[in-house]
C-alpha cells in the first residue's frame, strides 16, 4: 500500500512565475514527512504537485519528474484522475460536502469508481474508514446527519476518513490542524501516527512542535524574497533538523530567529 516518492529537479510555475525551484527529494514509505518553511515559500504548491492537484489552477505547470515506486506521475498517458485516487489529500480547512450525510461523505470517493457496492460492503467501508480516522465512536449513531453538523476537528477527521476510504498509497495533508483547537489537533496528530503504519504521509505545517512531534523526516523550504522561487534548503531526519541542522537558515527558522 504505502509507496515511496522520488522527486527529481521539480520546478513549479504559475504562468511565468516560478514558485518552486529545482526540488529533489525522496519521501519514504511508512513514515511521516513534514514540510516546514515561511509563508509563501511554496510548500502548498509543491505538495499539490505530488498528486497533480496544481493542474486545477489555470496556467500552473511543472517541469521535472515525480516517481511513485518508480512510476512517473507525469509520464505520457498518465491520468491525473487516477493519480489522485491513489494519492489522497486533506486540506487546511475541513471540507466535507455540505449536502451529504456523514456516511455519504465517507463513500464519496468510492462511489466515483462506479463499482456497485452492496449495502453491507458500504457499511463495512464506512466503519473501517471512520475507525481509521478515530471518529467512529463519536458519529456511529448519526451517520445519516449532515457532515457539516460536526465540530471542526470532527469534520477534519471525517475528511481524513473520506481520504482513507479510497485506500490510497499516500496521504497529503496541507496544514490539517491550522483551523483546529489544541484538543482536536492532538487527536489528529495521534491519528497521523497511526496512519503512517499503513500509508506514506506528507504533512505541511507551520507548527514547529507539531513537526517535531509527528514527523520522522523534515524538509525545510525557504525563499530569498518575495517574487523569487521557493527552494528546498535542507531535508533530513526530524531529530537532526531540530537539533543540529547543517544550514544556518534552518536553525534560524526553527529557533524563531527568522527574517
Amino acid at each position, binding site marked *: 500500500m504505502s509507496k515511496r516518492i522520488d522527486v527529481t529537479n521539480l520546478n513549479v510555475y504559475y504562468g511565468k512565475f516560478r514558485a518552486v525551484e529545482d526540488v529533489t527529494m525522496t519521501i519514504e514509505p511508512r513514515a511521516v514527512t513534514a514540510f516546514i518553511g515561511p509563508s509563501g515559500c511554496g510548500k502548498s504548491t509543491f505538495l499539490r504537485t505530488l498528486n497533480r492537484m496544481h493542474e486545477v489552477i489555470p496556467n500552473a505547470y511543472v517541469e521535472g519528474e515525480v516517481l511513485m515506486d518508480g512510476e512517473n506521475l507525469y509520464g505520457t498517458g498518465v491520468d491525473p*484522475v487516477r493519480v489522485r485516487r491513489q494519492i489522497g489529500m486533506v486540506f487546511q480547512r475541513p*471540507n466535507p*460536502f*455540505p449536502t451529504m450525510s456523514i456516511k455519504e461523505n465517507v463513500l464519496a*470517493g468510492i462511489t466515483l469508481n462506479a463499482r456497485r457496492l452492496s449495502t453491507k460492503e458500504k457499511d463495512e467501508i464506512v466503519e473501517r474508514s471512520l475507525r481509521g480516522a478515530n471518529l467512529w465512536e463519536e458519529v456511529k449513531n448519526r451517520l445519516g446527519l449532515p457532515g*457539516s*453538523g460536526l465540530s471542526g476537528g470532527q469534520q477534519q477527521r471525517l475528511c481524513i476518513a473520506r481520504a482513507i476510504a*479510497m485506500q490510497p498509497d499516500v496521504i497529503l495533508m496541507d496544514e490539517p490542524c491550522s483551523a483546529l483547537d489544541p484538543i482536536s489537533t492532538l487527536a489528529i496528530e495521534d491519528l497521523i501516527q497511526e496512519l503512517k503504519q499503513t500509508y506514506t504521509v506528507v504533512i505541511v505545517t507551520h507548527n514547529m512542535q507539531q513537526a517535531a512531534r509527528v514527523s520522522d523526516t523534515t524538509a525545510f523550504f525557504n525563499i530569498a524574497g518575495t517574487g523569487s522561487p521557493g527552494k528546498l534548503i535542507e531535508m533530513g531526519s526530524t531529530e537532526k533538523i531540530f537539533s543540529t541542522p547543517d544550514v544556518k537558515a534552518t536553525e534560524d527558522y526553527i529557533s524563531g530567529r527568522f527574517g
Partner: protein
Amino acid sequence: MTSTTQAAEASSPPATSLQGKPRPGDRNFAATALGAGIFILVILAAVTAFLLIQGVPGMLADPADAPTTLGQSANFWDYVWPLAFGTIWASILALLFAVPLSIGIALFISHYAHRSLASVLGYIIDLLAAVPSVVYGLWGSTVFAKAVVPIYAWLNANLGWIPLFGGQVSVTGRTILTAAMVLAVMVLPIITAICREVFLQTPKLHEEAALALGATRWEMIRMAVLPFARPGIISGAMLGLGRALGETMAVAMVLSATGVVTIQLLTSTNPSTIPANIALKFGEAGYGLNVNVLIGTGLVLFVVTFGVNALARWIVSRRSEFSGAN
C-alpha cells in the same frame, strides 16, 4: 464637522467617552431601507386591492352581463379554467425545455469554456434577455412556427400513439408546443444568468475536495457544484416560470388558441393563456362586466403565481440542513 467634534470632545467628561451618538449615516440608511420595505408592501397591497375590488364582481358575473368574455361559458370558473390550464401547461413545457438547457449553458460558461469565450457567451445570453417580447412573437409566428411544421408532422406520424403527439397535426405550426418553445427561449437568459452566478459561487474548497478524491470534471460538478447550486437553480427556474406565466405578447402572437383543455401538443386547437387572453380581449371588452371578468382572470393568475412561488420556497427549504450554508 471637525469643529463640532472637537467641541463635543472638549465638553464631554472622559467618563462618558464610550458613549456614542447614533451616526446620521446609519440612521438615514435604516430609515431608507425601512421605507423601501414598506413601499414594496404598499404596492403589493394596492395591486391586490385593485384585483379584488375590480375582479370579484367579474368572477360573480352572470354571463349575460359580460357577453364578449363569458358568452360561451356557463360561469366565470368555466371560462377561466381552460385559460389557467393553458397558462400553467405552456409555462411548464417552457421550463422543461429551458431549465436543462440553461443549466448546460451555465455550466459550460462557469466550468468548461475558456475565460474569453465564457464572457462572450455570457454577453450574448444577456443580449437575448434584452430582445422585446413582440420581436419574439413576430419571429415565433412567422418564421419558427413554419420551420417546425415538418417536425411536428413527423412526430405525429411516428409517435402519434403517445397522447401528447396525437390528434390532427396543425398546418400552421402555431401550437402550444411552439408557444412553449418561444417562451423557453425568452426565459432562458434569466435562468442561465442565475445558474451561472450560483455555479461560480461554489466554494473552491468543495470543488477541490471532489477533485482530490479523483473525480473527473463532470463528477466534480455532480458532487460539489450541482448540490450546492440546487436552491439557486430552483430559484432561477421559478423566476423563469414567473416570467413565462406572465408573458403576454409572444404567446398572443404565436398561439392559435381555441380555448379547449387538451394535452395534445401538435394540433390547431390549443388552450389560450390568461395574459394572452387579456391582451387579445381587452380591446373589445369595454362594456358591461367584461373588463371585470378579465381582471378576475388576472386575479387567478396572481394566485397561481403566488402559489408557484410558495411551492418553490418550500422545496428550497425542505432540505435546508443539508444546504451549502456551512
